[in-house]
């Protein structure tokens, strides 16, 4: 775990090395995608996003990628690196090995290069999309006058890494997927005034919760503590007659 002291030490020990990147390339009209190879100078703190932007700036301005917040909040920079689903902006290059393969996420149509068209990702969600939730942090703290309870955003940053990691879409694109099911479970757990009467029925479809076959890759890939696998299982628990089991909340910060 890197704290402030570790960061200072890392900064002091900067060494410029080079890593080789194999990057997926595809422009509309190409017969087939291909990989381009780039040698990129990196330092201890360089992220994959830094490396991709370096390529864009110094080698190939036509390399397209999605990014926005640079800190794992917007979820736009999801890719597969050496086969693993990660966010470009918070993945350090240093620990990845000498040759690094970067591809778009799986199971969502590719628009160009590393950019996928998220329309099909969002189309899977139920009509109501949970966004703000009650803050579990410092539940014991008082709130100022006029504020009933502290709120915070839902954990899900809609990055699509869970859908990419899931083995089921390779069998059927009709599977609604972990993000959509996790969103439904969150709405049932904390409706906040929304009409959730049909949500369990929505989940109770062959291409809903029952399409999941317990690989758990979604929770493994999630960069934001959503734990979609546990939430899918909680929905199933509710559907087989149990209560809607609530997985453990994230521990409060001390």
């Amino acid at each position, binding site marked *: 775990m890197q704290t402030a002291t570790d960061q200072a030490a890392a900064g002091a020990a900067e060494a410029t090395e080079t890593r080789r990147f194999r990057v*997926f390339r*595809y422009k*509309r*009209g190409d017969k*087939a*995608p*291909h*990989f381009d190879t780039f040698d990129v100078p990196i330092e201890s703190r360089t992220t994959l996003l830094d490396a991709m932007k370096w390529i864009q700036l110094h080698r190939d301005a036509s390399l397209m990628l999605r990014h926005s917040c640079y800190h794992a909040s917007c979820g736009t920079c999801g890719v*597969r690196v*050496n*086969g*693993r*689903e990660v966010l470009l902006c918070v993945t350090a290059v240093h620990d990845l090995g000498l040759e690094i393969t970067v*591809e*778009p*996420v*799986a*199971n*969502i*149509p*590719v*628009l*160009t290069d590393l950019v*996928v*068209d998220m329309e099909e990702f969002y189309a899977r969600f139920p009509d109501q999309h949970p966004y703000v939730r009650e803050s579990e942090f410092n539940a014991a703290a008082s709130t100022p006058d006029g504020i009933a309870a502290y709120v915070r955003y839902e954990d899900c940053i809609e990055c699509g890494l869970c859908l*990419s*990691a899931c*083995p089921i*879409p*390779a069998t059927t*694109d009709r599977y609604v997927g972990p993000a959509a099911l996790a969103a439904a479970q969150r709405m049932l757990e904390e409706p906040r005034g929304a009409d959730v009467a049909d949500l369990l029925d929505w989940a109770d479809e062959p291409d809903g919760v029952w399409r*999941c*076959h*317990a*690989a*758990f*890759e979604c*929770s*493994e890939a999630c960069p934001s503590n959503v*734990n979609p*696998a*546990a*939430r899918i*299982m*909680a*929905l*199933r*628990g*509710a559907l*087989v007659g*149990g209560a809607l*089991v609530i*997985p*453990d909340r994230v521990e409060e910060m001390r």
Partner: protein
Amino acid sequence: MSQTTSADGLPGLEERAQRGPVLRKGIGVAPSGWFDPRGRAIGSWAFAANRITGLGLVFYLYLHLGVLSILLVGKSGWNDFVALATNIVFLGLDVLLLFGVLFHGLNGVRVALVGTGIVPDRQKALFWAFSVIGTLTLAYGAFRILGRA
């Protein structure tokens, strides 16, 4: 005011609107591969192994029925089979069968417990716990089976 509209447009608008290629998990330029072992966690390996042992057990079932049909042939055929069945290689395969049964059965219990929301958030712990139980049982079973050689 001016009546100019955008007569030219963004090139390739139609191409943008088309559904692009969908990559699947795999190695190399997709969709060539179907199984990609890179970056997979224990849940995926259990998922894959469950299917493999399942196929194995189905195959074994047919094999077993085929073996039982030897009974129809009569005593001599059956005695030949029994002689074969105490061969060390055959007993080794029996141990393999035991592994398949234990894995598929115990993992099945794990999937049932997690998948019906009874213990939704403990899949890794269950995997390791059942691995211990399964390994001990397999060890004892192997000892008993191979002792018959």
